[in-house]
């Protein structure tokens, strides 16, 4: 049971990074990134392939972060004139392209068979139990560090410009702001964080395949950010843990429903997830920890 809790908490930490990534770009700059799973996959594959080729794990993880950011810049640069829905559709396409490349470029990704044997740092020294605890601490430390950095950005002048661009990009230009540059930076950082999350996931699982990067993952992260509170890093952080709590919690709830086969119980979880999402949107559309206006400094 304990190892199950540790596993869930580690997964929640990785989801937390994804939620922070989404919150930066969606809550901050107002750009909908439906391709989050794609940037997550880029990071996972980059770190897996590099470390399997003998690159030390920490360097592979940093490289994955950079690869994610580069993919983010590429995807945004290619769509520099697109806004709103159009940009969102392109990001959705990007994630599918990444998944299709992972499925078909066998020389690089081993196709649908996936990549097994991804090095797990210190696992041979710590043993499976020790590794699980160590990795949970590692993920949580990184999560808290990223959270603090993003909260700082959110409260700094950069965050103010970002939110202005979210509200009205053209007007931000009339305020003398270079909206394109700021959006590009925000997207690169957001995609870099998603890449980092992917790398952490790959080294934790030791095995990745294109199946791990389904669009459903992106939906879960949207659920996390929406229920936690869009536009506030603390909301995204909390939302990710709420979603995992709920996803894992429904595992046990299903058995309480009488007369269902195990297959039906598994399916009922997805129904419950959908219901929960509707309920959150209905009862608290602004999320648990909504965006706040920070008061002006005292005169």
């Amino acid at each position: 049971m304990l190892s199950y809790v540790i596993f869930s908490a580690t997964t929640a930490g990785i989801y937390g990074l994804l939620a922070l990534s989404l919150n930066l770009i969606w809550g901050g700059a107002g750009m909908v990134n439906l391709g989050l799973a794609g940037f997550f996959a880029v990071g996972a594959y980059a770190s897996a392939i590099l470390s399997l080729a003998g690159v030390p794990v920490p360097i592979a993880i940093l490289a994955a972060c950079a690869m994610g950011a580069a993919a983010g810049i590429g995807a945004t640069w290619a769509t520099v004139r697109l806004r709103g829905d159009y940009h969102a559709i392109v990001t959705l396409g990007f994630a599918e392209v990444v998944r299709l490349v992972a499925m078909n470029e066998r020389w690089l990704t081993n196709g649908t068979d996936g990549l097994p044997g991804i090095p797990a740092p210190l696992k041979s020294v710590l043993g499976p139990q020790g590794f699980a605890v160590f990795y949970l601490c590692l993920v949580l430390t990184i999560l808290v560090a990223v959270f603090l950095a993003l909260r700082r950005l959110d409260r700094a002048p950069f965050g103010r410009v970002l939110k202005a661009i979210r509200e009205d990009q053209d007007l931000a230009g009339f305020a003398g702001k270079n909206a394109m540059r700021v959006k590009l930076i925000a997207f690169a950082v957001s995609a870099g964080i998603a890449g980092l999350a992917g790398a952490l996931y790959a080294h934790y699982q030791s095995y990745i395949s294109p199946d791990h990067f389904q669009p459903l993952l992106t939906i879960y992260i949207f659920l996390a950010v929406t229920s936690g509170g869009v536009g506030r890093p603390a909301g995204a952080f909390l939302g990710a843990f709420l979603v995992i709590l709920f996803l894992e919690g429904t595992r046990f709830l299903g058995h309480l429903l009488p007369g269902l086969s195990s297959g039906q119980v598994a399916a009922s979880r997805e129904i419950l997830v959908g219901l929960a999402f509707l309920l959150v949107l209905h009862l608290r559309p602004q999320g648990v920890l909504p965006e706040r206006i920070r008061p002006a400094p005292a005169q």
Partner: protein
Amino acid sequence: MSALLTVEGLRHGFYGVQVLNGASFEVRQGTVTGLIGPNGAGKSTAINAISGALLPQGGRVSFAGTDITRLPPRERVGLGLVRSFQLARGFPRLSVFDHLMLYGQGHPGEGFWQSLTGGRAGRQHEERLAETALSVARRLKLDHVIDNPVSALSGGQKKLVEIGRALMAEPRMILFDEPMAGVNPTLSAQIAEHLTALNEEGITICLIEHDMAMVARLCDPVIVMAEGRKMTEGSFAEVVADKAVQEAYLGVRHDA
């Protein structure tokens, strides 16, 4: 006094209708120049071309000796040319304070690394800017709503925020597109006082206005536009005495 803004032969059409038809005029340094004329005369389109909201199909705009015809709006702001909008526009969920802060120019703290590391230059600039923002808010009597989102302000307060933001940019010139439209007479008089005060501090103003009493009170010179070009220019008394102006604009107005 020398021309701060020069517009030469501006041409622009929408769907085959020629809105600007070779408009040429100047705004001299230190003046409050009024832009009047009937609806469809091309006043707003001219302001849009001057501020960069629109790329004119022909002609040239220069500001302080620089050709700005093709510059993006943000670079025009950098040169000291800012504008307000006819329908007060804002960032709905940002506070009045944030609006004012956003218009400060050349803020080093807005850079990504500066914001992340909290560098000294950025923090000091932020503190100075905050002081300016608070004093601008007091001056415009917006200090009691400083933490409110602009979407929660009244129409008149939104107009005042427009003036406040323009001030924060420390501009050389402000373009106002009907700053008093839809505002009650008391507030309208207050806005007029603010504009006069700004002008006395050395800011050149160019404004579009339909309220002739306000134009008479504030503007000298007055440029009359009709059919996409300048018709005449002079003091308010001179232009209202002009027969052609009466026919094209003022006469029509009184008949209506």
